[in-house]
């Protein structure tokens, strides 16, 4: 592949990040009626079916199937990010590999869980509410409580940026932000055990705060610098500077 083609491929993959954010917001959050999600731990099975799956059946089904598609845009974006976390000798070190692994697993989860919720929506009126609630709750516990797959991605990315003084793609503050955001996911461990308050599935912290900062405070700045690098502006500037020196 010649360098110009490679550059175009990288730019296209860098745009997978914004596509993921917008697509997931439209399909999962809006069509899926997840702003916020129903407070499953504080609802009976009948309430969950009557007030959520039964009430918005077709929208949720379409939204979740769409989410299963859009979710996987996260993976190529994360892998492109990994290629930008190279060691001085050009190899992908362990931090880049951890970031890549986290991106692959997170992308899988963002597709896998919506597919199950789509099934819940499509079957809401034909199987017992207890079964729907059981599958719904189980899927949310998988979705939330495997947060470590994203936390390790963020911690590895942050560690690379902060510790690698010679890298020039990402400013240091983005690394510190990534580390902080990864750690804010930890209270998700409380989600299965509380029926109300900030750490419930629809709580101020465990839903609104962490999803907002992950989508906006992580994806946007990192995505911006990735796009700049993919477009080659900084690389050209570095080459010019190194020739001048």
């Amino acid at each position, binding site marked *: 592949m010649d360098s110009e083609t490679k550059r175009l491929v990288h730019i296209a993959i860098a745009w997978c990040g914004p596509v993921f954010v917008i697509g997931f917001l439209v399909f999962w959050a809006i069509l899926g009626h997840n702003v916020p999600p129903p407070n499953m731990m504080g609802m009976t099975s009948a309430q969950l079916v009557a007030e959520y799956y039964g009430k918005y059946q077709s929208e949720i089904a379409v939204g979740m199937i769409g989410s299963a598609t859009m979710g996987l845009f996260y993976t190529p974006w994360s892998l492109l990010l990994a290629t930008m976390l190279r060691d001085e000798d050009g190899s992908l070190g362990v931090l880049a590999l951890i970031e890549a692994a986290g991106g692959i697993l997170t992308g899988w989860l963002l597709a896998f869980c919506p597919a199950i919720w789509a099934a819940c929506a499509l079957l809401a009126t034909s199987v017992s509410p207890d079964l729907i609630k059981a599958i719904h709750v189980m899927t949310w516990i998988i979705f939330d409580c495997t947060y470590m797959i994203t936390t390790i991605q963020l911690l590895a990315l942050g560690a690379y940026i902060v510790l690698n003084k010679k890298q020039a793609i990402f400013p240091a503050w983005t690394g510190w932000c990534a580390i*902080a955001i990864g750690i804010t996911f930890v209270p998700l461990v409380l989600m299965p055990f509380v029926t109300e308050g900030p750490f419930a599935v629809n709580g101020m912290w465990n839903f609104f705060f962490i999803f907002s900062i992950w989508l906006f405070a992580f994806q946007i700045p990192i995505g911006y610098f990735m796009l700049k690098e993919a477009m080659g502006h900084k690389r050209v500037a570095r080459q010019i500077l190194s020739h001048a020196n």
Partner: protein
Amino acid sequence: MKRTQDHLGLTTAAQSSRPPGTDGVWTFVFIDMIIFLMMFLSFMTERLRHGALYAASQLRLNEFFGLANTLILLTSSWMVVEAVQAARRNEVRRVRRFLGLAWMLGLAFAVDKFVEYYLKIRAGVTPATNSFYSFYFFITIVHFFHVIAGMFFIAYCRGNARLRIGSERYVTGLENVGLFWHFVDVLWIFIFPLLYLVGRR
């Protein structure tokens, strides 16, 4: 080494005419501060929705645990300031003494916190009890992790003092640790009134 006194009346070695600490740690601490600001905002928003519950739950907190921890951390911060100034003067024994005192006070904070948690849990109060206690445990445990991290950094600096005193790198490192420790103190300065005092009958 030329010694000067700045407008604060602090004796500083010429090498510390540079700003204290490093940009990276100022950045990290600031981002951590933003996270805690979000926690405080979340807490106040929930408090708005469940005023009576929060007021009643707050009464079950013993404010004297919080007071003791505030005084402990303020004193520990003072000890770290003295340690940093001693490091700038290359006074290794004073550095070790003040860092040792700071660390012991950190330990006192930890003991006080454990006793408070133990009494709460024994009384049946857990993070799942209600929204107020979810926040109480969450905020104080996250802060407590910061205290533990700070104690680790202080111990590391104290252990390295004899070997590395006199180098600018050591002084900068200690300034960074001080920055982090004072941040831990500042957090508790707000956490104490937020959880224990504001709105208390």
